């Protein structure tokens, strides 16, 4: 319950934060909402020498229009995403996903950027971010760069963010209402045993299906997407047949909460359910 001692910095701009990171290198950890880092520090599983708290960095908490795209600041709490009527109109999948995270207190403190940067394999955001094909803007000593969601997640707790970089913004394109997120919770933690996000475009265009919780890294269920390709009307038999491929390419995780077979099975069930619900919203 008592973390090891650390040095604490509270920059007020991203540039300052990036400079501090450059100065302290691997010794430093960026603190956002603190919902993953602080428990790990209390258990002394994480013992950073330096904490860079970006909680007071100006202009990292926003949901706004950016030339037709939707831009969300990395420090935006899950709860604000869940509650935003403006966002619900334009990208309902984000609000729906946010509502599945933790409980009210967690959603009021935890942030979308913190969750994505932590890259817990059972977090909820990765499924939505992949299914929406989001862009992630990352600040570093060499300026800013943008990464597609498909390239963002590298492995268990590992993303493309380098040790001297900070995730600043998440951008998505507006979607129709035909989206859904279906999740089976790990009973103790509330994290996903299998969470499936689905985006069905209005007319033409490919259905996007993404899965979190099942494997070490969240993934686009490309076998499902391929099976759905070319079907203008997604009837239940087509959905069922496609959903059966939800865990095809994944190396499903097993632990005391669910075996690999059960996680893979849940991926299939939740894919079918998410597709069915999204189609019904069309």
């Amino acid at each position, binding site marked *: 319950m008592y973390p090891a*001692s650390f040095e604490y910095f509270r920059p007020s701009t991203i540039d300052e934060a990036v400079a501090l990171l450059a100065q302290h290198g691997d010794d430093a950890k960026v603190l956002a909402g603190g919902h993953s880092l602080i428990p790990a520090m209390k258990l002394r599983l994480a013992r950073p020498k330096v904490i860079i708290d970006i909680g007071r960095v100006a202009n990292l908490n926003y949901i706004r229009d950016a030339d037709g795209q939707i831009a969300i600041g990395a420090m935006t709490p899950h709860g604000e995403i869940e509650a935003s009527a403006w966002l619900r109109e334009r990208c309902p999948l984000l609000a729906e996903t946010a509502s599945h995270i933790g409980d009210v207190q967690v959603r009021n403190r935890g942030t979308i950027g913190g969750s994505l940067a932590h890259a817990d394999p059972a977090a909820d955001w990765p499924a939505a971010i992949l299914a929406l094909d989001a862009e992630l803007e990352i600040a570093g000593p060499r300026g800013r760069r943008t990464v597609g969601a498909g390239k963002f997640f590298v492995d268990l707790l590992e993303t493309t963010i380098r040790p001297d970089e900070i995730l600043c913004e998440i951008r998505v394109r507006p979607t129709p209402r035909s989206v859904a997120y279906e999740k*089976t919770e790990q009973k103790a933690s509330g994290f996903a045993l299998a969470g499936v996000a689905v985006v069905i475009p209005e007319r033409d265009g490919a259905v996007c299906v993404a899965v979190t919780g099942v494997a070490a890294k969240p993934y686009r269920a490309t076998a499902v997407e391929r099976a759905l390709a070319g079907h203008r009307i997604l009837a239940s038999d087509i959905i069922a047949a496609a959903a059966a491929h939800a865990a095809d390419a994944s190396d499903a995780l097993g632990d005391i909460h669910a075996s690999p077979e*059960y996680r893979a099975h849940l991926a299939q069930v939740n894919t079918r359910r998410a597709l069915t619900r999204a189609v019904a919203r069309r």
Partner: protein
Amino acid sequence: MAETAPAPYVGRALKRVEDPRLIKGIGTYTDDLRLPGMLHAAILRSPHAHARVVRINVSAAQSITGVVSVLTGAEVNEHCGAVPCVADIADLRAPRHTVLAGDRVYFVGHPVAVVVATDPYVARDGAEAIDVEYDPLPAVANPEEALKDGSPLTHPDLGTNLAYTHTLTGGDVDEAFRRADRVIKQRIVHQRLTPMPIEPRGVVASYHVGEGTLTVWSSTQIPHLVRTLLPGMIKIAENKLRIVAPEVGGGFGAKLNLYPEEALCGHLAMRLGAPVKWVESRRENAASTIHGRDQIGDYEVAVRHDGTILGLKARTIADLGSYLQLLTPAIPTLTGLVLTGCYRIPAIRLDVLGVYTNKMSTDAYRGAGRPEATYLIERLMDIVAREVGVDRIEIRLKHFPEPTEFPFHTASDLKYDSGNYQGALSKARQLANWEALMTERAAARAAGRLLGVGVSTYVEICAMGPSKAMPAGGWEWGCVRIEMSGKVTVITGATPHGQGQETSFAQIVADRLGVPIEDIVVLHGDTNVAHYGRDTYGSRATAVGGSALVMCIDKIVAKAKRLAAHLLEAPLDRVTFANGRFSTAGNDRRLSWTEMASEAFVAKNLPAEFEPGLEASSFFEPENFTFPFGAHIAVVEIDRDTGLVHIKKYVAVDDCGPQINPLLVEGQVQGGIAHSIGQALFEQTVYDENGQLLTGEFMDYAIPRAGDIPEYILGSTVTPSPSNPLGIKGVGEAGTIGATPAIANAVIDALEPLGIKHLDLPLTPERIWRAMQRHAVEAV
């Protein structure tokens, strides 16, 4: 002029007087205590399930600024006696349970060294800086494996992992099985559970060098038992030891114990001459506070073709963990006492094998033995009913004793005090709308849905208990004092820790003294205030502790009548006491408690040989246990795709005798059912095969949350107990006992169309899904 009696407090659903301070966060828990010069202890614990401690190097820890002392077993254990076990079990092989580990560690979480420092951060830094060299040894985590030849030994010096074999018999079991038309067998496993009180344990110890007195604040259910036992461990006289249980944030049996840390902190305070605080982390709580259940049983039921049960045989392997805590070996033997449940089963034999493993000790967890027994007999009743083709309600009714047959003697030699099992079951079926449920289930099944209805009836053992059945006294003590101002101070030796007796005891006393409830304060939990006590467990506080207060009030009223006779100048037998006033016919003067107390304290005008003051204390010794009972009905639906169980309806009818405060009764039942939902559907403590604990955090150990709890339909019947003057039976564990089997029976009922006859707990979605897969394959 006759005064109309005010409405009695007893029977009213009053809100708890305890709640405002707890809700506002201004109660005082152990961790809230701040004493001048207080030091903080952190404990280094074993990461191994079994290892030899080769060497411990504490020099790095000692060199940290702020570290006051670093001590290992070598320095502490000679000053602290062994952690006691008070269970009375014949031929028990027991290891010596030292406060800190000696040259071996026996479970993950075993305390190895303690660091005392000026703040808790430095204490933790110090614990981390201790360098321990371990030589890991083979560990055994599975009690069945532990009984096999060649298994690693938890305690090699005992030469065996078998702690004891306990046999309970009643009636002629051999004859019952000879006469049986068939014998139905079932293996039933109780998973291990972690009690997980929201407040973990914590201790503050302070030694007054001048007085030579030690005060220990501990988050415990049993300050009086700790005061009885701690002097045997650390060198202090009982009358120089004060134990205080401040606010306690949940116990559930986990704090019905004497733990090494209580002795350790007491010793450290005396050794260092400064107050010492230790507060358990959640991870420590999961690893080093007792666990519950963990029994594997093979059951055989001797039955006739018509469903008549002639006898019951069982062999139970009870996983004790590595050490005997206060009651560890006794708990599995309690299962046998009430294994025949509400039923007339004339012959029983239970063999309990207590087994050591390299895990945390098991001990009393909410219900302690009765949830195990009830789950077993209620599953078995359903299994037998199905096997012989008898309706499950019919088979229960067939074996209930009639209400007129009480006291009812069981094969296990208990005397059930009073009961009407038919009444409770009938009321539960009525509240559940049983006939409509059967129709609904038929329709659901026809539509391919997995809807199940489960029933359980239970009887349990409460109001512990007669002293002859308890290790160290089963009485309870109380004291009632009318203060000079007329206010009333009530002191109870029962130590409520969330059950609400500050409210319910005030209700009892207010009615009997005829005073406003606001004038009453109930004190408890401090051995310097409540001089005697046997504390709270086994639903004893109200039945036994409340009865002691009734005795006190009778004494005070009798004494006050003498004073009133003197003041009213009337003969004693003409003085009447009603509605808080003493009076006599033909005299308008009516004496209130305020007037009486004032006279008794000022003591200028007392009758001859009348001691000043209006105070009485009493011990109440119950003649028997009480036996609350009830009937629970659960309706569940299972998601065919995922195996997830949804509780659609929950009905509980509990008979705890007369209810002092129905709101408190309902709270106990609600909380108990929540515990049961956890055990039935998802809770389990998991160690891997090497004895590593895998459920050491709330991230991995699932406890019930608000969203898991259905809306309950609660009812009650009232059958007073003849064993105490209040007729109270007790209700603290009822929900935990009745609900697990009701839910399990409902789940199996839902799965019946698939041919599934039994699944062990917890009934997790994956376990159910796998069973469905298996049976789907078999069906093809």
